[in-house]
């Protein structure tokens, strides 16, 4: 059966676009490569203190609940787009669906497989703590067929490593690319010491730990946030602002201060981007809680006591040295290589910054009938991603009704 839209990516952009289309009476299929829907937002934490701080992370759960109940949306997990033929109004897509290795109907979530699995991270828990999946990139069975521990352990007979992928042929009038972004790789800026200096983490890693309630300050009493890691850096080809990092770093800093009042937090920045209304007032509040330092460190190194030490230009041009217990790199939003590849498959070209689609905030691409939604098109906050996905749904709906008018004529 021909669907109105084939949506590539089951993160917040793809889900919201599918839901808006469903509200308009249009049917769509979401193709998601991971075992669980939700994408990046599913690993972000709520940043509410005593009140909501408007990070938007919970919008994912909102839309997911709506999508699950909609009979106009089909979700294909573990699935990858192989090729696309045809044209606007009549696309034929070939999708490979890897089978669910752990059958959710049988799995009773006992955790026995997790206990026996010898490879950390090969068994992936859903962001909602219910349900498990196998990461085929890590699982030994899919590397050299050397381990079947999980299948042998499972008393429920829920694990099946032997099922083979299925090839699906899908027809759709339009295609929406909603395959998201890649967090900037902190290794691209080696002077920040990521992977070399203990106590240097990325903002996303911290968020993920906070989401799992797995982070305690322990000895971390002094925390530094470093802005523009992989953003506003023409030397590594990122000639743009990622637009979200000032917001998430300051929200995280305030969240930590709220939970652990004796922590001290500092933020090292170039320019603080407004992310809320009445930002003058907000900034004054923030200054009470977070020390703002206008300087990007020239180096982060292992200090004499083992904790990370920042070297930066202080006021009056003095070189300053300051030790912290934890340094959080506010990594930005980069183009996703797999999105660019998907763009190649569907025939949508990339823009000057490497994101798929045109400049500005356009939802259309270089190919008729192919659209983009969310951060695949460029940096966006969660709220902006939702706005963009609604815009995309509108453009898709117009395109579909134009196609059906033409078909009727």
């Amino acid at each position, binding site marked *: 059966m021909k669907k109105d839209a084939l949506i590539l990516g089951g993160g917040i952009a793809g889900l919201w676009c599918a839901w808006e289309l469903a509200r308009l009476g249009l049917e769509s299929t979401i193709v998601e490569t991971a075992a669980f829907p939700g994408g990046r937002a599913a690993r972000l934490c*709520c940043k509410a203190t005593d009140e909501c701080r408007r990070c938007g992370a919970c919008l994912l759960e909102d839309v997911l609940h709506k999508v699950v109940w909609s009979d106009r949306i089909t979700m294909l997990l573990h699935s990858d787009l192989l090729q696309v033929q045809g044209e606007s109004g009549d696309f034929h897509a070939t999708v490979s669906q890897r089978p669910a290795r752990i059958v959710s109907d049988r799995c009773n979530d006992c955790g026995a497989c997790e206990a026996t699995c010898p490879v950390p991270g090969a068994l992936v828990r859903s962001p909602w703590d219910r349900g498990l999946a196998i990461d085929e990139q890590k699982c030994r069975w899919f590397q050299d067929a050397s381990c079947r521990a999980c299948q042998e352990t499972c008393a429920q007979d829920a694990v099946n490593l032997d099922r083979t992928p299925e090839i699906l042929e899908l027809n759709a009038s339009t295609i929406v690319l909603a395959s998201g972004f890649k967090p900037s790789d902190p290794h691209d800026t080696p002077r920040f010491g990521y992977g070399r200096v203990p106590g240097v983490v990325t903002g996303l890693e911290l968020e993920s730990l906070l989401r799992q309630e797995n982070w305690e300050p322990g000895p971390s009493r002094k925390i530094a946030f470093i802005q523009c890691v992989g953003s506003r850096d023409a030397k590594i080809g990122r000639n743009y602002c990622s637009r979200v990092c000032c917001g998430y770093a300051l929200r995280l800093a305030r969240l930590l201060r709220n939970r652990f009042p004796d922590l001290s937090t500092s933020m090292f920045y170039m*320019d603080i981007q407004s992310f809320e209304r009445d930002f003058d007032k907000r900034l004054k509040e923030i200054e009470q809680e977070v020390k703002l330092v206008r300087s990007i460190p020239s180096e982060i190194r292992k200090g004499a006591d083992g904790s990370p030490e920042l070297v930066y230009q202080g006021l009056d041009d003095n070189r300053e040295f300051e030790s912290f217990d934890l340094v959080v790199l506010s990594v930005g939003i980069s183009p996703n290589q797999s999105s660019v590849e998907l763009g190649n498959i569907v025939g949508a070209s990339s823009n000057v910054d490497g994101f798929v689609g045109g400049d500005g905030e356009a939802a259309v691409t270089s190919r008729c009938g192919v659209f983009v939604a969310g951060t695949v098109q460029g940096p966006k906050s969660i709220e902006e991603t939702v706005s963009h996905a609604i815009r995309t749904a509108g453009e898709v709906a117009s395109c579909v009704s134009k196609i059906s008018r033409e078909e009727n004529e």
Partner: protein
Amino acid sequence: MKASAIESIFLTRKPRPKEDAALRVLVLGGDQTGMDLASRLAVEGFEVLLVGGTAVGQTSEGVDLFPDAVLEEIQGFVGGFEVILRTRRDRLTERVGFIVAAQPARIVPKYEQHSLTKSRKVISLSDLEAGLRTGNALEQPLDEWFHAAFLYGLKTESQPAVFARVLDAIEKLQGQGAIQPYVFTRHLKVAAAGLERRYRECRERGTLFFKFDDAGPFFDSSPNGPVMTFTDPLLHLEMDLEPDVLVVDEELLPPTMLEPLFKSMPSSRFAAPFLKPESTRFPGVETPKAGILAVGASRGVFDPEIIRGDIEAVIVALKRPMPEPMQESLPGPPEVDPGKCTMCLTCVRLCPHGAISFSKHAEADGATCTRCGICAEECPMEAIKLEPASQQPEMSVRIRNCLVHTGAAGKIVAFLCSRSAAHAMESIGRQIGENLVPIPVPCAGTVGLTHILSAFESGADGVIVAGCFKGNCASIYGTLLAEDRVGQVRGFLGEVGIDPGRVMFVSTASNTPGVLVHAVRNLELTITRVNNVEQCEKSQKRGSGAIP
């Protein structure tokens, strides 16, 4: 209170029966955005009434122009609003299905912040833009300019949209002759598509940027014009500059004339001066009231690229079938018992979505009502009831059934907001749950004394009311009302011999199951402690009774 006074306060008199107004849209415009939106809507088959400054001769078919009209009053609901427009000559009553606020931002030059006054050499960004457009609006010929100083977000924060305009102006000036631009700023706002790249290019073409953390330059005036003195933030050298032109940046504010819209939506006081609260519950153009949409400045968005998306989002919102089918788990629309309603208007004043009108008694509009249930709980006459969701008994019966079914001993009844806490509960799985009786409610704001007492009457040991975090309630203040009420109930419980510690309120989000788990564990501890104390007291009483 006189009837006329009531009408002037609450503009929600029951409207006349709906005509076919659903395809008519009132657009409050004023610039290109309003016109683009109007013609887009016309193409989509809507009949548009466009209010606000429009150049003559740019009309498109299906758009009625009211260039000098002012929106005076709104009544009714989505699909059948009655609006009163005042023009220079008369007062028109029109019926429309939707109202879209798409006025441009109010632009205020920041002269005062710098104690500057407009003069031949001191102009606002808008003045410069007008001059560049027409070529003759400026008092001073452009070719006499060499040093052009721009102030941008120096004393108060600015917007990327304004920085884009500064860059536009610099590029145009550079295209017209020899010029040395300077930009004086604090935080450059580059968080918009392509802005960082344009900033770098502008710098490479010779514009000097000075970023200040402190007060910035000091302004004086000489017979020749303004004089600026400042310490270069990088070189730490004292500098002075006598610019040939000093361009003052501008503040972007929400439009005025939203007053009639505010009045139709009691929750608007949490959003004013914007039309939409700053809440992720309203991520697009929709406001808390169905059929009233906010585009661009009225929702706090100033980036022209995103505003273009807003236009598309309006089309999406207007094309949705109406009323949309509600989730099955939500109750039906509130029913008012005409015999009990005394027209006290509590519900009208409190409905966050402006869904309640009145003629002989209060009545909720089915398409506007989100079923939050705040009205039912707040009605002092208990005249309003939410019809239970299909095939579900009334809430007190549900509570009793749940407790009877599972055995009441040690049980905690949890009233969970279906938009946050109920989702969180789903992902808790096996961590808690044995002793928890979850009762999903449409909004925590619908939970009150009766519900909490009925839980205790049915034998529960404790009650949790779990709402959204402040600022994240889909009914704006439902969660605040719930928290207040739990406080009141605690006071009351003490009087009837139930330990107030047995009731608690907790703020949650759908992605914070942990918060709910902690709350339940804490309540369990409290209950154990209270049970012990109460048992001790009982046995002491028995003991003291035995001795004499």
